[in-house]
């Protein structure tokens, strides 16, 4: 279907089904029950899932295929956000021009940065991208204040020109009148499910993004990028100039990041410089590695995983912990709470850091490799004579 192999079609359909039914899947616990705090089916969080999914999928096109580790990808996200908000300020609150401009501007930005950074590889490339991103961050905070509104962050004011704004146009972000924050709540007994217009738009765009990324992975172009990753020197020796290919990959992944930034601004018309800081770049690296770099589904899994647990872990506090360990004797209960306390609430980053280290050390293929190993182990148990060759890590694509 759509030029995909059967396996890839199934993958795409699974992703489509997951995003379509996400409001149900993420809200498995009835409202008001003790487990309701694990629900993640509210619009704001679901939007973040798919937006960061797009960001990570784009990052994976660069890092997963070519092996170039960029530590400055958040710059494109920030540029995308800024240009989207400018479209809101100048034209109207329609998100379509905003998203299109975000992609174009971040693409141009990526051409410039990529052209310079890709002249080096390895750690030098990482440092160059980091330097560019930090420069953009510093400039957005200081000199570019007329464009970026400095520390306050760029936002839409009532006295902005908004040339396309009719007298009865909506004043919140919308797609030709469909407001992004419009939410339909379905109550089924004790359950309640939120269906949010903004989420479904982002989800649709993510599906297109994933489809494009599958096509890129399967194309001759993608094969060329993989060849660059495995041995760039040999490619050069065969008389091939690899730089146009890596530059194209860099620009595509920059445009994905810009798209994510534009969507972020479309959901909430704000843009601040902190989106460009290198910690934000680090986050997308974490997502991609945690999910599985170089695999198709990995980055989406990683983004969902990190955003979900960030949200859940931050909500757990000592009271909740005391409830969990209530079955233990008092002294032991307090001790368990004391033990777990550093890892929850504000300590979420500690958990994330440890998790990330464990993944890099033991599971370089990320969650996807973990899943494959478990699958292989289960299969191996089922058929004892299964040859070990299948249990070896097969590139998960």
């Amino acid at each position, binding site marked *: 279907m759509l030029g995909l192999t059967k396996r890839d079609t199934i993958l795409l359909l699974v992703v489509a089904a997951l995003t379509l039914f996400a409001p149900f899947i993420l809200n498995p616990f009835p409202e008001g029950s003790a487990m309701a705090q694990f629900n993640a089916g509210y619009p704001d969080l679901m939007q973040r899932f798919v937006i960061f999914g797009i960001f990570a999928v784009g990052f994976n096109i660069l890092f997963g295929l070519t*092996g170039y*580790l960029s530590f400055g990808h958040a710059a494109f996200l920030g540029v995308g956000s800024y240009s989207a908000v400018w479209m809101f300020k100048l034209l109207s609150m329609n998100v379509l021009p905003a998203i299109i401009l975000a992609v174009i501007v971040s693409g141009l930005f990526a051409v410039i940065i990529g052209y*310079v950074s890709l*002249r*080096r*590889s*390895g*750690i*030098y490339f*990482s*440092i*160059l991208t*980091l*330097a*560019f991103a*930090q*420069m953009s961050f*510093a*400039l957005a*905070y*200081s*000199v*570019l204040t007329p464009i970026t509104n400095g520390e306050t962050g760029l936002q839409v004011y009532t006295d902005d020109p908004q040339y396309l704004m009719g007298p009865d146009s909506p004043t919140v972000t919308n797609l030709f009148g469909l407001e992004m924050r419009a939410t339909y709540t379905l109550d089924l007994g004790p359950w309640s499910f939120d269906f949010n217009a903004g989420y479904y738009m982002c989800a649709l765009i993510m599906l297109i993004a994933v489809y494009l990324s599958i096509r890129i992975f399967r194309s001759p172009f993608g094969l060329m990028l993989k060849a660059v990753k495995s041995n760039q020197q040999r490619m050069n020796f065969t008389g091939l100039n690899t730089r146009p290919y890596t530059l194209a990959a860099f620009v595509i992944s920059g445009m994905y990041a810009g798209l994510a930034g534009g969507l972020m601004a479309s959901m909430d018309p704000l843009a601040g410089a902190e989106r460009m800081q*290198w*910690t934000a770049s*680090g986050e997308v*690296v974490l997502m991609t*590695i945690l999910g599985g770099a170089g695999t198709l589904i990995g980055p989406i899994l990683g983004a969902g995983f990190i955003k979900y647990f960030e949200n859940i872990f931050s909500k757990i506090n000592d009271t909740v912990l005391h409830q969990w360990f209530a079955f233990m004797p008092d002294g032991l209960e307090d001790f368990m709470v004391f033990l777990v306390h*550093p890892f929850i609430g504000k*300590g979420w*980053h*500690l958990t*994330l*850091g*440890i998790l*990330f*280290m464990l993944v*890099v*050390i033991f599971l*370089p293929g990320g969650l996807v490799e973990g899943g494959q190993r478990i699958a292989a182990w289960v299969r191996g148990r089922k058929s004892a004579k299964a040859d070990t060759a299948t249990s070896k890590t097969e590139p998960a694509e």
Partner: protein
Amino acid sequence: MDAIILQILNGLDKGSAYALIALGLTLIFGTLGVVNFAHGALFMIGAFCAVTLNKILTISYVTIDATQKDFLGNPLKVQNTYVESWFGPNLGAAIIDWSVPLAILFSIPVMVLVGFIMERGLIKHFYSRPHADQILVTFGLAIVLQEIIKLFYGANPIPTGAPEIFRGSLDFGVLLGFDPNAIIYPYWRLVYFLFATAIIGGVFAFLQFTTFGMVVRAGMADRETVGLLGINIDRRFTIMFGIAAAVAGLAGVMYAPINSPNYHMGMDFLVLSFVVVVVGGMGSLPGAVLAGFLLGILESFASMNQIKNLLPGIDQIIIYLVAIIILLTRPRGLMGRKGVMEE
């Protein structure tokens, strides 16, 4: 003229910190071939060694002084530190006052130990893996260390003072024959610079004039041959990792009075120190030191008002700009050897 000297002096203390961190980074890269993203965290742990010692020294007990009243009319509660009651008020107060310099002694074993644990426990397993993996795992370690510190000390900066006699400023201009108050320079920054020079000199002397240092240098040049000569080069490299950690830690200890330690100070310095290493040339120790001071001074010149008016925002980006230009025109850096990580 006095403005130029002032900017050079201003750049020296930051430059010293860059140089010390970059020196440690280069030592680790040169010996073990590992790109250590957790080095900034070591700097931060050093600064928190100073905080910790200060806290330990000021542990106090409360006595009630019946002869004095507080503003509510109750007997005054007096905080007495144990140190003062053990060593007498004069010596005790002096010990507390000098807690930051004393923390140097305290931090060396701590940092060496942290370095050993890091190298033996984690980084050892990453020698044969690609640089990207090394960057990622040390990046994760940096997050973990930073969060652990945040857990114990909170997110706010903790002011840690220099000893009383170093709190003032030196009127440097008078010494050189300028008007009074033309060049004012705080004593502690001068101390920091001298300290950094001493440490850097010590490291170089150690590498240059001791047998141990000679073996390490030989190992940096050709690890395999040194190993074939029957020398346990791995153990020596581990010790060098400990030394590099101690250098970063000492830089942090002495930096505490200049900038109140907070949990993300390591990351802030790390990014810049990496840029310094790259500018100086990967694997070149003199290059790292030179580039550290050079970029520190350059940064302070860029923050002069005359230059800022000419090129707004230049002080924010000058270091990155220099790094980009250097990387594109001379990828091995100022003093890098040909062929070391040139790609």
